[in-house]
């Protein structure tokens, strides 16, 4: 298909490089250097999307990121990406894009009947209509709204690409590489500053690539090439094209997203799709330019209505005619340069409409309507005529046939990024726009972003800003100007003109969110008389658009409706990101299996090879159970493991427990502060169970701590709290008791540790250790010592038991873990030693009534766990004073109890609440809850641990367990938590 709107010469496109692409399945061609938007326009494609709410036909309004209409769905398959601005998509061979928000087709869209319903779809429609009844919110209303509104569709397949995150540091970050940014970067770089310059465009250069002008007698794009060459030659400069500075954060931190491979069909090998940069800049210059405003008139969203700057860009940069017969309408001398550029591109300018009474004598050689404005765009799916009338007449007097209406309402400084830390812009009537003071902390705003709209002014402003930054950086400035002379068309002489009164049709203020002037007036009428309230009520300036083109026009309409000035109304807060940033870039490599770090114990490989099913415990992977041939369920495996351990011997990997080595003359006294029980009198070679509280009196963690030497203790913590306990210890020492002479270090990862439990545990270990008497007399319960195993392997042996069996924990340096484990397995083979996982371990500790994470949930006191007696009266410890508060010692606090179902075989479920029989299930009747549940093969019953008000005095009582999640109800009996071997005979054997 020929490119009917493409000129045969001019522009910065490579006509030798023909690219094929498709839009809505139809095939077109373009050239290297095109955007999707310029290529569509070159092919005469005007209608590119449907609007958000009314499903109105929409075309291409702008040539940049501010595009509110031309949002398309890019690429097929798993790379599908909705809401992509066609105006910034670089064309590549084979590109596939689709319009969105239409059904069944772009030209015939069923939902466009919404236009007929427009009287009902006014401001606040969703709030008012979908208010009652609340039960309809999710199931009914949300699904209707989601289908009718909403923009593109995401791909539900996994993203095949990868993303990177990176950091960079510089003296000066220059945001935007138009004339201001390039002048600033050159000035600072020539003076020796480390400069990063970033621009969202495919090429650096900004408006210099779009306008017909001469910079020191060079064409704009030629001058840009020479500037880039010079910057490239300097090793202390980094240039980022296709990179958006999307956010400004504290202390000179900036968020940048570099679209490394978005301009390609897919990323080349070993290349990320995008990179999220965090730049730490000592100074920054915001050279983000200005964004052109439309004029709000009737049906101003019709395809073919385009901003004047965009029209010049398409004509000059892409050699594309925005239309064949064009009406140019505006309020400044930009009209003249637009008419000239369009004329040079071969468009016929059929009318010039100027809101000003005088046009400064510029002879355009065409019909010119002064003190007039386009009041309405006529046509169907694209513009066919413009209705023109005098500014304040309220009526249209002329109708001019045309296929495009090119409009300029003036330029708004683009200060979005400067306001991210809360700066409030103020209205400057001289430039007809909102601006900020030039200096914003480490940031200097310069050029068009400050309201200096002329190209030469921008070059000078960039130099000035750079020199100011150099001064602050202590670098001697270079005063030689970057550019001496710019020859460009006249501009400026702007009249403040924002909207047409009493326009027919719909006058759009916010194209992306389908907000019309009437909505804003209605919002004010209904009492939303602040810009922020009106924004939320009408959705004006929200979502990805953030009011880029429409905010000042909206402010002017609100000001009129409120009877205030534009300055008093103000603009709504713009928030980062400036333009959308993909979730992939935010997550970087932290996706899928790499979402979090993975911690594996030294014996992980053995577990894997021997049928272990793993469960995540924090970052750790722990064997949950080892499925054997013929076993169908975890329960069969777990029961077998418990029975084997209780009847002979089992082995379990407990390497994940936190281990903290504590040494020093004051180690014992320090432990006295950390634990509720005493430590100074613990004999060397002995272990003790310890419980620690938070300062508020609640239990923080528990574990055994062994005294390995006079001044040497080894603390163990629960797996989950290992890091928290370490930080707590550091806080207690460094902040509260720095006078203690004590050192501590986490050794969790330095030791592999395994529990060997069961009546045969001693027999097994005797065959492993080197010449150590393990008899009950020589190595009794709670003994702990260093020794060697297997003929010289260093090890530690602790006779401690979580399972309630005769049990030991054997620790070896991590690298020996698997060797030691295999040796123990071999030594235990005659006894049928059985590896057991977390399920069996859990079942055995529940049988014994040992508390674990489910019981130590941050709400339990030592006495709630039945361990109040451990609390030393003779010493101070963390949590002691507040543990004595009335609420923490109250009689009716829920206490740890055992729970057995009264019906044999009934399954006990953790999380169930306990209620008196027949009581209504309300909080006032609540007696407690079940914290842990397991099947006990030993007792041939399901059992649980739980908390029951005053539970220790209610043994034998029956309660109803109500499980709201599983919708079950069953009866349980309160029993002692020590359900197996309550006297502890086995572990002392």
């Amino acid at each position: 298909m020929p490119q009917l709107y493409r000129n045969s010469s001019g522009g910065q496109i490579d006509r030798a490089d023909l690219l094929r692409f498709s839009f809505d399945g139809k095939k077109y061609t373009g050239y290297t250097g095109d955007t999707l938007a310029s290529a569509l326009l070159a092919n005469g494609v005007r209608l590119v999307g449907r609007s958000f709410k009314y499903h109105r036909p929409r075309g291409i309004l702008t040539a940049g990121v501010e595009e509110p209409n031309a949002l398309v769905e890019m690429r097929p398959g798993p790379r599908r990406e909705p809401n992509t601005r066609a105006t910034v998509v670089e064309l590549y061979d084979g590109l596939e894009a689709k319009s969105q928000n239409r059904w069944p087709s772009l030209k015939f869209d069923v939902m466009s009947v919404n236009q007929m319903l427009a009287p009902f779809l006014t401001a606040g429609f969703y709030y008012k209509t979908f208010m009652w009844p609340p039960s309809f919110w999710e199931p009914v209303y949300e699904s209707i709204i989601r289908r009718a509104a909403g923009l593109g569709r995401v791909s539900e397949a996994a993203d095949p690409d990868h993303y990177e995150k990176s950091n960079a540091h510089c003296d000066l970050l220059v945001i935007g590489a138009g004339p201001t940014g390039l002048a600033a970067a050159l000035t600072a770089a020539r003076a020796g500053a480390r400069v990063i310059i970033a621009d969202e465009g495919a090429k650096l250069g900004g408006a210099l690539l779009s306008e017909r002008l001469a910079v020191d007698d060079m064409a704009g794009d030629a001058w840009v090439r020479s500037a880039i060459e010079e910057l490239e030659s300097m090793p202390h400069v980094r240039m980022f094209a296709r990179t958006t500075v999307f956010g400004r954060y504290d202390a000179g931190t900036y968020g940048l997203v570099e679209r490394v491979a978005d301009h390609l069909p897919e990323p080349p090998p070993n290349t990320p799709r995008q990179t999220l940069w965090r730049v730490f800049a000592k100074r920054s210059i915001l050279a983000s330019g200005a964004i052109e405003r439309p004029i709000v008139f009737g049906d101003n969203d019709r395809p073919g209505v385009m901003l004047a700057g965009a029209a010049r860009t398409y004509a000059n940069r892409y050699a594309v005619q925005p239309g064949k017969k064009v009406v140019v309408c505006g309020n400044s001398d930009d009209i003249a340069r637009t008419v000239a550029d369009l004329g040079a591109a071969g468009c016929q300018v059929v009318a010039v409409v100027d809101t000003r009474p005088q046009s400064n004598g510029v002879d355009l050689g065409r019909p010119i309507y002064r003190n007039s404005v386009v009041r309405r765009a006529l046509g169907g799916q694209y513009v066919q005529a413009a209705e023109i009338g005098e500014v304040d007449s309220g009526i249209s007097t002329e109708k001019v046939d045309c296929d495009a209406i090119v409009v300029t309402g003036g330029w708004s400084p683009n200060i979005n990024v400067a306001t991210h830390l809360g700066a409030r812009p103020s209205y400057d009537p001289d430039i007809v726009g909102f601006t900020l003071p030039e200096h914003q902390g480490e940031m200097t705003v310069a050029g068009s972003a400050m309201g200096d709209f002329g190209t030469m002014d921008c070059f000078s402003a960039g130099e000035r800003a750079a020199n100011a930054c150099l001064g602050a950086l202590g670098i001697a400035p270079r005063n030689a100007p970057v550019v001496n002379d710019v020859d460009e068309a006249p501009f400026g002489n702007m009249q403040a003109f924002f909207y047409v009164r009493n326009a027919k049709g719909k006058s759009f203020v916010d194209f992306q969110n389908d907000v019309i002037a009437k909505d804003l007036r209605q919002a004010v009428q209904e009492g939303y008389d602040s810009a922020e309230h009106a924004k939320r009520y009408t959705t004006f300036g929200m979502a990805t658009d953030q009011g880029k083109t429409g905010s000042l026009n909206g402010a002017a309409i609100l000001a009129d409706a409120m009877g205030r000035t534009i300055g008093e109304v103000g603009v709504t807060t713009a928030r980062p990101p400036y333009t959308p940033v993909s979730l992939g870039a935010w997550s970087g490599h932290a996706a899928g299996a790499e979402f979090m770090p993975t911690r594996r114990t030294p014996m992980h490989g053995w577990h894997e090879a021997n049928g272990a099913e793993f469960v995540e415990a924090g970052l750790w992977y722990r064997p949950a159970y080892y499925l054997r041939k013929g076993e169908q369920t975890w329960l069969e495996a777990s029961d077998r493991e418990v029975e084997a351990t209780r009847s002979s011997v089992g082995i379990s990997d407990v390497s994940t427990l936190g281990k903290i080595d504590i040494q020093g003359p004051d180690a014992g006294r320090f432990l006295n502060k950390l634990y509720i029980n005493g430590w100074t009198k613990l004999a060397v070679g002995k272990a003790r169970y310890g419980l620690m509280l938070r300062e508020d009196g609640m239990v923080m963690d528990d574990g055994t701590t062994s005294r390995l030497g006079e001044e040497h203790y080894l603390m163990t913590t629960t797996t989950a709290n290992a890091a928290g306990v370490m930080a707590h210890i550091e806080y207690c020492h460094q902040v509260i008791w720095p006078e203690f002479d004590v050192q501590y270090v986490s050794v969790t990862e330095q030791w592999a540790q395994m529990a060997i439990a069961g009546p045969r545990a001693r027999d097994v270990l005797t065959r492993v250790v080197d010449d150590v008497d393990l008899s009950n007399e020589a190595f009794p319960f709670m003994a702990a010592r260093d020794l060697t195993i297997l003929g010289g392997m260093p090890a530690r042996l602790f006779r401690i038991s979580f399972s309630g069996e005769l049990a030991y924990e054997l620790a070896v340096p991590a690298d020996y873990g698997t060797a030691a484990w295999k040796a123990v397995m071999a030594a235990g083979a005659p006894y049928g030693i059985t590896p057991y996982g977390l399920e069996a371990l859990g079942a055995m500790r529940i049988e014994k009534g040992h508390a674990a994470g489910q019981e130590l949930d941050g709400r339990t006191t030592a006495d709630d766990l039945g361990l109040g007696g451990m609390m030393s009266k003779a010493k101070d410890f963390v949590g002691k004073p507040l543990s004595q508060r009335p609420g923490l010692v109250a009689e009716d606090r829920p206490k740890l109890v055992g729970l057995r179902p009264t019906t044999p075989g009934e399954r006990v479920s953790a999380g169930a609440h306990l209620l008196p029989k027949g009581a209504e299930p309300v909080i006032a009747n609540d007696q407690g809850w079940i914290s842990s549940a397991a099947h006990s093969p030993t007792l041939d019953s399901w059992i649980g641990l739980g908390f029951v008000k005053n539970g220790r005095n209610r043994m034998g009582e029956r309660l109803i367990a109500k499980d709201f999640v599983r919708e079950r109800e069953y009866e349980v009996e309160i029993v002692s938590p020590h359900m197996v071997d309550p006297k502890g005979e086995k572990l002392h054997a």
Partner: protein
Amino acid sequence: MRIKCPYCGWRSIEEFTVRGEVPPPRPAEDADTGEFVDYVYIDQNTRGRTREHWQHTGGCRMWLIVERDTVSHEIFSVIDAREVA
């Protein structure tokens, strides 16, 4: 954002963990419960300049006192918590 650790120098903020305002010194062990309640629960919640305990968890593990502005987020000083203990 970065914090200048007195031992490690300028480090990225995610290496650090904030605990909260620097409380008054821990009361004597025989102090009234009320004093401990204040110590544990009462914050000044200052709008503006405040002193907080931060730990360089991803670095030297030292507890630090960071003096900073809760509105502007400007950091005025970072010292080892032991210097005032």
